[in-house]
């Protein structure tokens, strides 16, 4: 009696395989698999800890595969169905993370292997640690996690000055990052022109944030320069990549080997890097062959004037957010010379002459 029934079922399935809507087929297998996964997730709590990680990985992968299947099925599934399936996957993933959070005090090793806290005894990966309450771990973590505090050995930082003449210290073997922030009405010049002391070492990275009404003459930067929130400031800089964000009224005397970009900026005026910075130790190759803005030099191309504005993607019209300095607006070399030789003067006297607001 049983056998014929079974045969019938097989036949039915065979027919179904051909005629059934792919949507229904998808629904069947998808539902079956998500059901299976839900069960596996539920059973995580009772599974052995040693096997848990493997089955978690397995579940993650299966969710991944299903996500792909859903993507593949997008050609024949109605939008609403896709949405529903996708929500099911999302909820599976949520269930999994909840299950994982509920299980295993898994954060127990997260913070131990920080170099600074590495003392002989406390560090061994033996069980006593899990007994430490989570709050305590959090508390001990606090002083270490102040990540915005740069390592003084590797970063030369100049921050929070007003009305001051400042000088960057020369880069050396370990100090390669130059970081400037929160300067107001300051003049920053490169370290003394004693090139022999510094050898070939250049700063590799420049990071500048929150500068207003200042003149920054930056030593040569080998790598990228990233500048944010500059106002009414004049900056002299040579670098590999140039990114300027959220700034207005800035004059940039620039030498840059790739296309500079600006984002959320207004009133940016650019010019080529004057010879003066060469004299003040800001040499880079020493050549001034591209001074006229020809960017076709093969050896050391200078793209100071090929700025891309992320807020202006039209090609037919130039961006209103930046332009090149006209010859009569540019500060001339001999003016720079005079300025540099009199850096002991009151900053405002010099700033009056070079800042964008005073010449616009």
């Amino acid at each position: 009696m049983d056998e014929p029934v079974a045969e019938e079922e097989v036949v039915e399935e065979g027919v179904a395989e051909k005629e059934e809507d792919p949507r229904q087929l998808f629904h069947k297998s998808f539902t079956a698999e998500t059901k299976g996964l839900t069960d596996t997730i539920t059973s995580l709590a009772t599974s052995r800890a040693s096997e848990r990680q493997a089955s978690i990985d397995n579940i993650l992968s299966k969710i991944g595969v299903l996500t792909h299947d859903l993507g593949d099925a997008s050609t024949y599934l109605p939008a609403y169905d896709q949405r529903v399936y996708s929500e099911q996957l999302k909820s599976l993933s949520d269930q999994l993370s909840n299950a994982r959070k509920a299980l295993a005090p898994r954060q127990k090793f997260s913070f131990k292997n920080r170099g600074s806290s590495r003392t002989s005894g406390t560090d061994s990966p033996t069980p006593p640690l899990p007994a430490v309450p989570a709050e305590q771990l959090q508390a001990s973590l606090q002083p270490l996690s102040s990540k915005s505090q740069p390592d003084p050995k590797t970063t030369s930082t100049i921050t929070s000055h007003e009305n001051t003449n400042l000088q960057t210290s020369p880069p050396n073997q370990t100090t390669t990052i130059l970081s400037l922030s929160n300067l107001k009405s300051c003049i920053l010049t490169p370290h003394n022109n004693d090139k022999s002391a510094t050898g070939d070492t250049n700063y590799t990275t420049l990071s500048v944030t929150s500068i207003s009404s200042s003149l920054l003459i930056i030593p040569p930067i080998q790598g990228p320069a990233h500048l944010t929130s500059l106002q009414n400031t004049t900056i002299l800089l040579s670098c590999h990549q140039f990114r300027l964000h959220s700034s207005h009224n800035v004059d940039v005397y620039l030498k840059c080997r790739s296309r500079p970009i600006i984002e959320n900026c207004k009133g940016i005026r650019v010019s080529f890097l004057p010879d003066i910075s060469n004299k003040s130790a800001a040499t880079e190759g020493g050549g001034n062959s591209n001074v006229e803005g020809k960017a076709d030099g093969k050896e050391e191309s200078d793209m100071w004037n090929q700025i891309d504005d992320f807020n202006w993607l039209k090609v037919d019209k130039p961006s209103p957010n930046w332009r090149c300095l006209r010859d009569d607006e540019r500060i001339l070399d001999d003016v720079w010379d005079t300025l540099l030789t009199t850096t002991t003067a009151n900053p405002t006297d010099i700033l009056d002459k070079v800042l964008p607001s005073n010449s616009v």
Partner: protein
Amino acid sequence: MLSILRKARLKDKEMRVLMLGLDNAGKTTIVKQVMKEDVNTVSPTLGFIIKTIEYQGYKLNIWDVGGQKTLRSYWRNYFEKTDALIWVVDATDRFRLDDCKEELHGLLLEERLMGASLLVFVNKTDVKGCMSTDEIKEGLKLDEIVTHKWTILRCSAMTGENLDEGLEWVVTDAKERLFLY
């Protein structure tokens, strides 16, 4: 039904890899280095770049999408059918590590990226004074990620260090998933 589809995908031997990260992380430079192209002429990416890399018989379609703030809202347009997400971190950029964490964790909430594994590339490790792996792990709160399989690798787009190892991980991981059934 699903298994047929899966087999078809295996045969393609194509994988879609999405490369994201903050601006100035070195995404394009990594791609250029892998392609053995000149890495000294990279300009900030205005939009996106697609490159196909042959690796161990697999075709990796790498989508390198610009990281500028303005572009980040467009990242979502690239999520569909991503096999692996490569998150590139600038190891020298302490100031924006928090930003970097926010963006990454935001991405991981995306349901369309749920199936993707995550490779965190700690780039610019050739620069002296860059952050340690532990610093980055903690700064990005990587240990809190439970929704995705992830790993972290130090690399240098300028020297090429560890780039192949990264791709290797991506491919091996994707293969494992496809052969599950």
